[in-house]
């Protein structure tokens, strides 16, 4: 079965703090894709990153960085020097060939990040 676990339900930080959002996934497939999405209060889902199972290189995009470790089945997301505009719900998601739902994304339950000034 495919599963995504985001153990942190809510995180509160003060501006300029670094924060890491955890994501642990389960799949028996060797080919799969991992995603992170941001959902601001307006509700739309904003794509942040896509990573395939064969690429374990960490990625950095501005203040955002992602740490993919197949050995621990984790795909963690770090925001450096957080800002109030980072306040949102963040979802980790998995797409696997063996997924019975075809290519559909399976989402974690999300982590609500609140950044205060």
């Amino acid at each position, binding site marked *: 079965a495919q599963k995504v676990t985001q153990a942190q339900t809510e995180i509160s930080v003060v501006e300029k703090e670094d924060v890491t959002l955890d994501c642990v996934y389960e799949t028996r497939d060797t080919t799969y894709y991992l995603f992170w999405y941001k959902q601001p209060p307006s*509700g739309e889902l904003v794509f942040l990153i896509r990573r395939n199972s064969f690429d374990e290189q960490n990625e950095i995009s501005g203040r955002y960085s992602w740490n993919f470790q197949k050995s621990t089945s984790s795909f963690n997301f770090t925001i450096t020097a957080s800002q109030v505009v980072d306040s949102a719900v963040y979802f980790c998601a998995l797409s696997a*060939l063996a997924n019975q739902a075809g*290519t*559909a994304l399976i*989402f974690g339950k999300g982590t609500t990040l609140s950044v205060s000034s």
Partner: protein
Amino acid sequence: SQTIHQWPATLVQPVGSPLSLECTVEGTSNPNLYWYRQAAGRGLQLLFYSVGIGQISSEVPQNLSASRPQDRQFILSSKKLLLSDSGFYLCAWSEGQGYGYTFGSGTRLTVV
């Protein structure tokens, strides 16, 4: 470029009334289409997906149904709404696994 349209943005419906939410995609052909629901304070649950016209797969038994009458049109329906159908409904499309998934702006449904 590809775009996805979803409407209406908000909807308040009485219990027992019908529902029709529409989603259309532009700028691509034969997309994979998906309907998700997000209940208040909860994650995104896959409701239906479609890999082609007339091909609908349901993930969760429920009071809802989906149809794909045209290649780039995906409709979510109900004959009689329940209170538990309230939530935020998102339509999405993808070219297939490994490609990006693009989401519509969502419909916030409140059943009263």
